[in-house]
């Protein structure tokens, strides 16, 4: 197993640094483009949510992202110490929501936001969110077809 943790302050521009790093590590591990895109996207969505919702854009807080790649899966855990996600949103993350079930011809009712959790739900094979009120953990797993070992 290969594991690396990324830690940034709650600054939106540093979310891109995590995205680029996750991308580079996944590429180094020989993962497919689809997996790389999906994992990078979900990491950026999760980190952005932590900064935006858990920390309400307040700076000086920490977001950490642990990425573990084994031959069978990519595992991501995003930790923040801000406001926990409301329970109905946790359910939406776990069970999925209807935000993307729009009528594509009904322009006025297209979603402009609220798509992040559903993107994680659709992209990952497992998504969960656990909190003790202080430490909030977004946990995601993507299965992959076994990769050749990279050194």
């Amino acid at each position, binding site marked *: 197993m290969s594991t690396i943790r990324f830690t940034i302050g709650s600054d*939106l*521009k540093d*979310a*891109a640094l995590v*995205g680029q790093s996750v991308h580079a590590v996944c590429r180094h591990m020989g993962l497919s*483009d*689809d997996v790389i*895109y*999906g994992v*990078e*996207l979900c990491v*950026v*969505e999760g980190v*952005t949510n932590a*900064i*935006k919702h858990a920390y309400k854009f307040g700076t000086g807080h920490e977001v950490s992202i642990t990425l573990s790649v084994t031959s069978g899966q990519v595992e991501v855990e995003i930790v923040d110490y801000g406001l926990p996600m409301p329970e109905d949103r946790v359910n939406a993350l776990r069970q999925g929501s209807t935000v*993307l079930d*729009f009528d*594509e011809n009904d*322009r*006025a009712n*297209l*979603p*402009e*936001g609220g*798509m*992040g959790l559903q*993107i994680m739900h*659709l*992209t990952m094979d497992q998504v969960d969110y656990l909190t003790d009120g202080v430490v909030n953990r977004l946990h995601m797993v993507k299965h992959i077809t076994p990769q050749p070992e990279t050194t």
Partner: protein
Amino acid sequence: MQFNETTVGNILVTRVLDKRIAEAVSSELKTTLVGHFQNQHGVVVLDLSEVSFIDSSGLGALVAVLKSLQGGDLVLCGLGGAVANMFKLTRMDKVFRIFQTADEAISTLSA
């Protein structure tokens, strides 16, 4: 954000020069595009060929622009791997008119 803009008739081709469209720049993207329509551009072709990553807030900004239109049109081109995946995943590829290249968009829209 950085853009490269070219006008062809009443079509404005706006090429995004940033590699990433995410929360940090999405409201700037929206304001820029809405401004173009207020400046009487009939059609804006947003060329995303240099963009290698877009998140849900970037996508949301584009949807917001589309919803704000009072005539005119916003079309897209140059969607690479991760960006194309994002439109497909969210079914927004059914919402936007998407061309392979800016040239293809121009020739179709001027016809």
